[in-house]
């Protein structure tokens, strides 16, 4: 519950900060054309949209984490928490995801510099590494179930699968966009400026999304290890 409170307060502060600059205006006094932010800052609706979506995703994981921490604390129940021994493959999976993020960042840097040929194999590699990660997570479930210290009915196991599954589902959803973008990168005409610009934006968005999901995974992993 404390973390839910924290999220709420952080959110409140963020919203407040974003708006505070504007709420000092006296709109009834000023007439005429005022510069709006769009004139002074190059903005991109898809980027703003993605950040809003990432706020939603973070809220979701924050709440799952709160529920988990409440359960660990034995809130409202008499059961004593029995921690799960996390399968070691999770460390390998984490490395794979870091590599995926890294590969995607390299791809982004190259595609930003208009080097589509150089960037596309890194982009594809990021996708493949993500598939390996998801497969690794499923292997981890199997390992925890068969050779773990707790039975599948235990809450620690249930939360382990739940948290990793929700994270994996988000990555899986991202793979749809990544696949489409990869296809476009490989097919794009060198002279089609508009299409290349669109692909660039798509790659930037994918990279942001992947980095954010890596951060979330690190948070989830740390939470699981510490309880």
């Amino acid at each position, binding site marked *: *519950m404390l973390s*839910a*409170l924290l*999220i*709420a*307060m952080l*959110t*409140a502060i963020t*919203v*407040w900060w974003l*708006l505070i600059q*504007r*709420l000092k*205006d*006296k*709109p*009834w006094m*000023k*007439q*005429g*054309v*005022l510069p*709006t932010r*769009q*004139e002074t800052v190059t*903005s*991109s*609706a*898809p980027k*703003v*949209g993605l950040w*809003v*979506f990432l*706020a*939603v995703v973070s*809220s*979701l994981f924050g*709440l*799952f984490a709160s*529920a988990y921490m*409440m*359960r660990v604390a034995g*809130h*409202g*129940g*008499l*059961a004593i928490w029995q921690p799960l021994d996390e399968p070691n493959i999770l460390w390998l999976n984490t490395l794979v995801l870091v590599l995926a993020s890294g590969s995607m960042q390299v791809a982004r840097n190259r595609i930003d510099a208009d080097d589509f040929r150089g960037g596309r194999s890194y982009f594809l590699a990021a996708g493949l590494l993500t598939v390996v990660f998801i497969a690794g997570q499923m292997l981890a479930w199997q390992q925890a179930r068969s050779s773990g210290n707790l039975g599948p*009915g235990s*809450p620690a196991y*249930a939360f382990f699968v*739940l948290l990793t599954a*929700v994270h994996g589902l988000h990555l899986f959803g991202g793979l749809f966009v990544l696949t489409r973008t990869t296809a476009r990168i490989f097919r794009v005409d060198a002279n089609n400026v508009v299409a290349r610009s669109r692909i660039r934006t798509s790659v930037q968005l994918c990279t942001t999304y992947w980095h954010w999901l890596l951060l979330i995974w690190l948070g989830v992993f740390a939470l699981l290890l510490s309880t």
Partner: protein
Amino acid sequence: MAYVAIADRDHHLHDPTTWIEKYVWSQDHKVIAIQYGSVAIGVGLVALVLSLLMRLQIGFPDTFSFITPYNYYQFVTMHGMIMVIYLLTALFLGGFGNYLIPLMCGARDMVFPYMNMLSFWVYLVSVIVLLASFFVPGGPTGGGWTLYPPQTVLEGTPGHDYGILLMLLSLAIFIVAFTMGGLNYVTTVLQARCRGMTLMRMPLSVWGIFVATILGLLAFPALLVAAIMMILDRTIGTSFFMPALLSLGELNGTSGGSPILFQHLFWFFGHPEVYIVALPAFGIVSDLLSTHARKNIFGYRMMVWAIVAIGALSFIVWAHHMYVSGMNPYFGFFFATTTLIIAIPTAIKVYNWVLTLWRGDIQLNIPNLFAIGFIFTFVHGGLTGLFLGNVTVDLPLSDTYFVIGHFHMVMGVSPVMVLFGAIYHWFPKITGKMPNELLGRFHFWMTFLGTYAIYLPMHYIGILGMPRRYYAYGSTDFIPSSAHEINQAITIAAIVVATAQVIFLINVFYSLRKGKQAPDNPWGATTLEWQTPQTPPVHGNWGPKLPVVYRWAYDYSVPGEPKDFIPQNEPPKGHHSLASS
């Protein structure tokens, strides 16, 4: 470099050509808004019928044999869930949000039109899944709209096998739809405002919907978390919420779960949810009052601050729904304090609405009647909320009809007053026709007086101690026969008010076909949606050039001006419009 609006940069405006593209798979925000509105009102009528069935049972027990205790709790649950989420949230945000945001911000459409279209169809799927629960074995869930475990997933509660699963699935699908829509509303407000439209020149309708959307995007995940965990508890036997339970002398296999955890998650969503319904209503009613009193909204900046403050504070009051759950009394103290604090910006808004009307040139047309009716009913509901917000006073009132009276007044009556006011107000713009005056006024007075007749007596029987969510009361000493008579009167009032809503529907359909042709700006409003070249606005909204905004949204009765209103896109004296250059 010449300024090019975001909405003008993308030349691939999804111009529809076929009938299907224009009215079914439409990416136009106006069509999507009407689609949302129609489905929301349609499913709301289902919920209205359910409420009548409930009232028939409570008013006249032992009379209607087709209403069993099993059915009754299903009606209670489905009525509540449909009204709060599938009607109010969908209509305010999906309906009015979609229609008004691009128009009031001077944009051609939402920034993600394809996702906007998807959000409606996913919403429709969620409604179909919800209504499908009427047709599965066991019927819909009867656990109350709050769906508390463990009862809701245990034998003894209606719909514990399939109904609850469909309910939870439907909510999850709705949350996906809402997220898609919400991304649109937030990003459009932040990115696609036309030139000159600063945040502080936006009408309060947009502010209300904008902040409500942010609340929804952050609060609905809590419901999703709760729903996923409850689905797992129900299907694969996990114990997220299920404590160790004995059923007929045997352990049922679950252990260690916490029902209180569900309550925390549910109300962390549930309280912001009521503000998701209320804030758009606050914003819209400000515009209605201002336009129809020919006076600028009193204290525009404070109104914006209050909307933002209410939104932020709404995340730290949730456990005032849990005073009787057995939690630590110090939590109750904390949440009672924050609940009283949130009353302050809300009260400021009420004062400002009244002060807007003060010495205004009040036009008593139908939208204004509903707007003033909102003030009455919201104050009533808000005052009873102050009682319930205090822990010790809430202890005897919790789960009584006092609570039902309170939340219907603040959520059922006052926002619905705003909805009706808004529909009558924007009807000329959306349809090009004027609504019928006589039918509209009749509808208003029946609804306004009728809802008082329904909900005012509930406060009395609540204080008496009459509990809610009871199928029948039998004859007990503490409930006198006068309370039963009050219930009969409430039921009759409910039937009358429900019938009056048929008058509203008749008005809508009659005026659509035979209504007087509406002028472009019948109310003399300043906001941008009334300044479109065509009425109703066509695809693309603004013609070849986007509007340019020169002033705030409330230049009504400006001293020294010939007209009693100045549209937002009218340039200051001596300047020609930049939109034509």
